[in-house]
């Protein structure tokens, strides 16, 4: 299967290893991976801050860059959700949108739902805490979450648990927001940081050596707090763990 990589702008510029790991995982799963170089940003920062008119040209640009691809895969739940759930009002009735919307996936969801991966062969002998990023969890439904009494599922944990040696620690609040929230991280700095420190404390209490998740943005916020506090915790995107484990 041919896959177009959708690499969020901040991953492209600040966390290239996550983009490379995503490509490696997909290739190891037998996909042919391309990177459309004209991509920049999906427009989420503007849209979430309330500036729809500034997000719209970026949404249209995204459509132009990615339309026609069989599958568009992104190592971020919130950027994927931006395209899937928040583009309608920005691109109107552009005829290219419905197909692109249906072809755009977050990495783990692509592995589980499209490639039907139930088990990843590889070894990762660490105690890992999974941070559920909100938009992946509640807008893409990568997992069932704790609010709704529905049959439990978790596409990210499913992949991680399948690795030999990896122990997922159990958190007291398995899906509480870390407080990143885009511009919220700066606009409500005090609350944002307290939320983040509370998440870190939960992972530490649970005995995690590493914290992983589907979104580098949340991990960047948590890592920033942990590094300032001198906390010994490693933060890695789920793609990095999968890629390393698969060798």
């Amino acid at each position, binding site marked *: 299967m041919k896959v177009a990589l959708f690499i969020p702008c901040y991953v492209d510029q600040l966390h290239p290893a996550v983009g490379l790991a995503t490509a490696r995982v997909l290739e190891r799963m037998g996909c042919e991976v391309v990177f459309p170089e004209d991509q920049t940003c999906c427009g989420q920062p503007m849209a979430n*801050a*309330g500036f729809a008119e500034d997000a719209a040209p970026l949404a249209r640009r995204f459509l132009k860059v990615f339309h026609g691809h069989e599958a568009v895969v992104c190592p971020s739940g919130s950027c994927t959700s931006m395209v899937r759930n928040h583009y309608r009002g920005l691109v109107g009735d552009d005829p290219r949108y419905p197909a692109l919307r249906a072809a755009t996936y977050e990495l783990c969801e692509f592995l589980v739902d499209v490639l039907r991966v139930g088990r990843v062969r590889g070894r990762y002998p660490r105690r890992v805490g999974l941070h559920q990023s909100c938009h992946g969890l509640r807008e893409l439904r990568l997992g069932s979450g704790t609010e709704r*009494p529905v049959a439990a599922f978790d596409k990210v944990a499913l992949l991680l648990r399948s690795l030999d040696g990896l122990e997922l620690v159990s958190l007291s609040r398995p899906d509480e927001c870390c407080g990143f*929230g*885009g511009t*919220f991280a700066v606009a409500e700095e005090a*609350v944002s940081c307290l939320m983040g420190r509370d998440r870190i404390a939960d992972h530490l209490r649970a005995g995690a050596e590493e914290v992983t998740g589907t979104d580098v943005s949340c991990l960047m916020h948590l890592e920033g707090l942990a590094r300032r506090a001198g906390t010994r915790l490693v933060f890695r995107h789920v793609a990095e763990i999968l890629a390393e484990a698969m060798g």
Partner: protein
Amino acid sequence: MSRGRGSAGGTTGHAERAAAFVADEDRAHWHDGALWVVRRKRDLMAAELPEWEALRERAARIKAHTRARLAEYLEQFEGEATARGARVHWARDAEEHNRIVHGILAERGISLLVKSKSMLTEECHLNAWLEARGVEVVDTDLGERIVQLAGEPPSHIVLPAIHKRREEIGELFHRTLGTEAGASDPGYLTGVARRHLREKFLAARAGLTGVNFAVAETGGLVVCTNEGNADMGTSLPAVHLASMGVEKVVPRLEDLSVFVRLLARSATGQPITTYTSHFHGPRPGGELHVVIVDNGRSRLLAEPAFRDALACIRCGACMNTCPVFRRTGGHSYGFAIPGPIGAVLAPGRDPRAHLSLPFASSLCGSCDDVCPVKIPLHEELLERRRQLLAGPGGRGAKRLAMRLARFVLGSRALYEAAGRGVRLLLRHAPRRLLYSRWNRWGRQRELPAAPEKSFRQAWRDRERGRG
């Protein structure tokens, strides 16, 4: 804090009030923990009903149906209630509501009113209105009485005094009700409050209640409490006043079987409130006055993006689950209804005063998933952001930054150049420059360690190596 008043949006809004609350980290954690317990109790209760999600869906549909025929159902309710001997009054806004209530009391020479929980009267600032006209108002819900004695507004719609520790309540009761100094045993304090309130119940000639549900087909009112104070306040005094927003009407008695099951489970994690009292007309020899209030609700109904918010049954579940509310307290919102639903409703009342509220959310979406009537709260918060920024109050500096970002991100060359610039800055700028006062990210957090090459550069290298 001024009652129900928010300071102007922009630079002195929720963020500043929240920072003040969070500054006492122990207190913020204690508040967070207390409400998290309520959220967990709600989860357990929801999980006990296999049909929970279906109930939510049903409730949302009943509310949508009722909203579409609101005038019809309200008039039907008026007809049925009147036939059962109630007097129905209509109030366009808060002032008209307050005038009607005061008029009823003044005509009968009543100067003491006992009141059970009613967020509508908070919204209308009824207490201040009546007190200014010589009527003593006594809130009889224990939490409401606590905040009333403290001269504060409620900080939560179901748990009005959740922000107060029991030692603080002991101190307050010592000052106002003469309890022993230093006493903070909840049983003792509640006992004193009960005796104090009992005197008021016995002395009052009028009692006011809120309304949880008004049934159009029967003309009946339903009031849900845990303390029985609404029942005391309506069975001792002869005059019962009931204040309700127009959105409280449901079509049929059987609709209650959906809402009553959802309400207490969502609110406090109880299967049902201790008292679910039905009122059909006045009691023998008494009077029942129902005041139906619009106060901006029909304006909300006219806004397709926000009309779902009218379905709110005031359970408070969105507050208990909100990671921001739990850590910042209800007073940080500066509006009678705090939390996610308040942040959706408040700007509809006064966009300038409540400009900051839709931004007081990380948009985590947990509120959507606990809401018993499925209000898409985080979507509506996002929509409020759009609406506020499109208006004249839109913030200048932020707008300029967004314009610039849009321009840069609209071009691959500019984007790549800007990215290179940011990485160079992060890698080589002196720390004191990077972490100067303007860097709010960096007050408590490190900036990410920037790589030399972007992903796209590394990708090109990789492809070249392969080629």
